[in-house]
């Protein structure tokens, strides 16, 4: 199992810091957040709307095998600086989970490697802990078989 992705969760704080180093130039890493077709693949979701710019917004939709929509997610883009930063909100529609604020910082390490810092701020400590206990809340679209399909397709 890869331990490339690190999670920093401090007691009593309402935030989570996710860090990850990639064997990718920072431009390619950033591209994976900008192109709808690529987002659809690695997030296993449908991109309904994506306005990647300041004051823009986004909406994703995840369906089950029969094509029935299981979850809709949306948010606003608060800041967008190519290859550097995305600040956005994230909300799951039709659930009582409160909106969360996400700060994504893209960092160039070398010509061929990069790092992503993703700080997620929740409404309260309790909301954060609830989310951690339920990876499925965010991971509703993550199915292992899907993952394998995509990876083998790209081999």
């Amino acid at each position, binding site marked *: 199992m890869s331990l490339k*992705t690190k999670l920093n969760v401090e007691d009593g704080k309402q935030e989570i810091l996710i860090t*990850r180093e990639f064997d*990718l130039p920072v431009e390619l890493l950033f591209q*994976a957040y900008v192109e709808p077709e690529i987002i659809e693949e*690695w997030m296993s979701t449908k991109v309904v709307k994506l306005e990647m710019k300041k004051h823009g917004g986004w909406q994703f939709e995840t369906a089950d095998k029969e094509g*029935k929509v*299981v979850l809709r997610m949306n948010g606003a883009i608060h800041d967008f600086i190519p290859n550097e930063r995305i600040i956005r909100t994230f909300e799951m529609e039709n659930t009582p989970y409160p909106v969360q604020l996400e700060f994504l910082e893209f960092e160039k390490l070398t010509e061929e490697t990069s790092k992503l810092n993703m700080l997620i701020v929740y409404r309260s400590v309790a909301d954060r802990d609830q989310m951690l206990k339920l990876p*499925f809340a965010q*991971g509703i679209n993550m199915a292992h*078989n899907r993952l394998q399909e995509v990876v083998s397709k790209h081999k």
Partner: protein
Amino acid sequence: MEMRRDVFQAVADPTRRAIITLVALHAMTPSAIAEKFDSSRQTISKHIQILTECEILGQQQNGREIYYHLNAEKMKEIADFIEPFRKLWDERFNKLEAIMKKYKPKK
């Protein structure tokens, strides 16, 4: 171990994960759960049945209604507090990396 694998299969389905997410907040009747989905009530009932069989959901009779609640003990068995969340992002990012390594710009 056999049982464990079944539990993981149970939570591998997106609809079932959505049901877990809903019920985690408060106990719900089957009809209240079904209302949240576009799928037929029958489909949702089947998902609830699978989750109940794996003991992820527990039942409680309240008057005429049956309420389903999340079995926190069972969830703990499946999930160490933080690891699944980390793993979720790790898998997403692995996928992102694999895709972008093969990526060719459109222009």
